[in-house]
């Protein structure tokens, strides 16, 4: 085998080892959110805040938010900045989706119009923040879309537990968003094994 070929082979083995080592070293962030003064710990968004100097490509796969039985399903959705969301109508009544602002910025308001059962309309969310999803003929309907800067996020289930998968090793800032509670911030260090965190969200 020539010297060149040998060097390429060694480099490939070393790179592959590094790649596999990276996968083996990525961990999960697991935990539980407890609440004070709130009715429930369900549907609280937990996400890794923006990492300085790190940008993530917008995913090609769309995320779907349905309107079913006069409700947004899921009620709270977290997406990476740049994600395209498909708003599906599964009801036999006409719905519409609009948001009055994104994190209070009314310049980012948008109304998608009206569509019937089985149809969908899509929108790419390029600005980070929180959008309250509303239907202007059924004002009791509401959902929330949280647009974040990293692909590491989760939404708590009924007892407040969450799991964020495949977070690379490092120290990050973990943040929460909930409809009625104040945002919470906590530092988390991810190693080769899962990091466990306990968060408290207050009214």
């Amino acid at each position, binding site marked *: 085998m020539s010297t060149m070929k040998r060097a390429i082979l060694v480099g490939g083995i070393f790179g592959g080892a590094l790649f596999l080592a990276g996968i083996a070293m990525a961990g999960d962030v697991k935990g539980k959110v407890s609440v004070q003064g709130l009715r429930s710990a369900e549907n609280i968004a937990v996400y890794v805040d923006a990492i300085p100097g790190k940008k993530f490509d917008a995913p090609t796969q769309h995320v779907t938010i349905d309107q079913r039985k*006069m409700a947004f399903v899921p009620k709270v959705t977290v997406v990476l900045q740049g994600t395209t969301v498909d708003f599906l109508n599964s*009801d036999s*009544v006409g719905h*519409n989706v609009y948001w009055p602002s994104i994190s209070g910025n009314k310049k980012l308001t948008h109304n998608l*119009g*009206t569509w019937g059962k089985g149809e969908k309309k899509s929108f790419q969310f390029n600005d980070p923040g929180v959008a309250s999803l509303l239907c*202007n003929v*059924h*004002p*009791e309907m509401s959902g929330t879309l949280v647009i974040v800067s990293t692909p590491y996020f989760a939404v708590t289930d009924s007892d407040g537990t969450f799991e964020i998968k495949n977070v690379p090793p490092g120290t990050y800032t973990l943040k929460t968003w909930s409809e009625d509670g104040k945002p919470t911030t906590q530092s988390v260090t991810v190693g080769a094994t899962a990091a466990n965190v306990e968060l408290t969200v207050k009214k």
Partner: protein
Amino acid sequence: MDRQGTRVVVVVSLIMLASLIYAFASAPRANAIPAFSRKYQTSCTTCHNNFPELNDFGLAFKKNGFKFPADDESFVKEPPVLLGAKAQKEAFPTAIYPGELPGNLPIAFRYSGFAQYNSKVPLAVGFTPRTDLFAPNTFTIIAAGSFGPNISFWIDNDISTGGSGAAGGLGDGYIKANDIGHWLHLPKDALNVRFGQFELDLPFTQARTINLSDYDIFDQASVALANPALCEFATPPPPACTTNNPFVFGVPQRGIEFGGYPNDGNFTWSVAILNGNNDGPAARNSKDIYGRLSYTFNLERDPSVRKEVRAAGPTGPRDHTSLRIGAFGYYGRNALNIGGSLFPALPTIREPFYRAGGDFRFKYRNFELWGLGMFGHDTNVIPNGPSDTATGFVSATPVTFAGGFAEAEYWVYPWLIGLMRYDVVNSPTDFAAGVSRRDTRNRFSPGVQVLVRANLKLAFEYQHRFEQPIPGSAQFFRANGFVIGTDFLF
């Protein structure tokens, strides 16, 4: 307007304005929701664009027996109580046909209270206060729903009107069998039947109007011009000569109504057999008949949009652009002098009467325009002599009237609605009776309505009325008024 009156108006207006500001500034956590809202856990605005006015979806909901037009069961949040498993249908007639009760008590309450400022009315007419705070006070209980797929009901009763302890009364109280034409292989909802006391299938409702005052033509009754020469002979003079027909359109009637809207489409028809004594028990043997036909032209360009319950607007569903035209007619035979109550020696007087008219309604985006014209004719029969010597009756000049209204409504915002209305009634007999300066009396009624919440409204209406004679003088006055008030349901 005098100083004291001005002060009162300013104070009341400021109080109302302060309430409005406070109500808007507040951030309610939960809406109060009447019966249907509770059943489906949805806001009033699903069916109403300016309660109690129905949007296209609300109309479809009502036509479907107070159920969602499609997939109703999937939207119900309060499941009904089954009065028999659905499979019991197969066991019928050896078992009672299964029905259902609403899961929660289908009751709602409505309160309306208004303050009124009146222009100065001459004392010769009778005392009319310049201001009247919160009258009429009306507290209404409403119960409505369905007992399964084909039976629906509606009951509303004014528990209190015009202040504490005042007499209330049943408004509508009926049960309706929907789509009974199904058994005759007729199109869906081609034939429905309702029985009880109900507002006629009028082109425009008076019982559930958005206005603060009635449509004048709906309150018009036929009262004959008394013939002084004949009436003077009797001692004491009879209370009225003839043609005192109590029937008015604006009051619920008792009877049975057949009607339908085949395939829930644009054509509607109804025929009702009625007592004809408004919301009272039958006062004569004969029954009256009322019929109505209407057709709605859906003016949406896109054929697929026309099939939807509501049209797809750029910012959300909206009512279809449409034009509805209709015609209606009423026939009855009023009966007087039953048992010789007016003229003891004479038989019962029978005076056939009819009402006939046409209507239209145009909708386009945030604007609606509607109107109605009607003609009324009552045969007038009077005794052929003084009441104590008369031997029979002769025909006299029929009592006639005509009139109608036109109204426009515009949504500046979903919560801010402007109204403008014109009422007109031409009644020679009313003129002769001193009701108005001329045969024709009319009024303009501009108004503003504010939906402070989906179930709470503040309403303002100014009424610029016709000239009326001042008794004992050659002068006239206008009974103008400004009404402001609140209306809410829970």
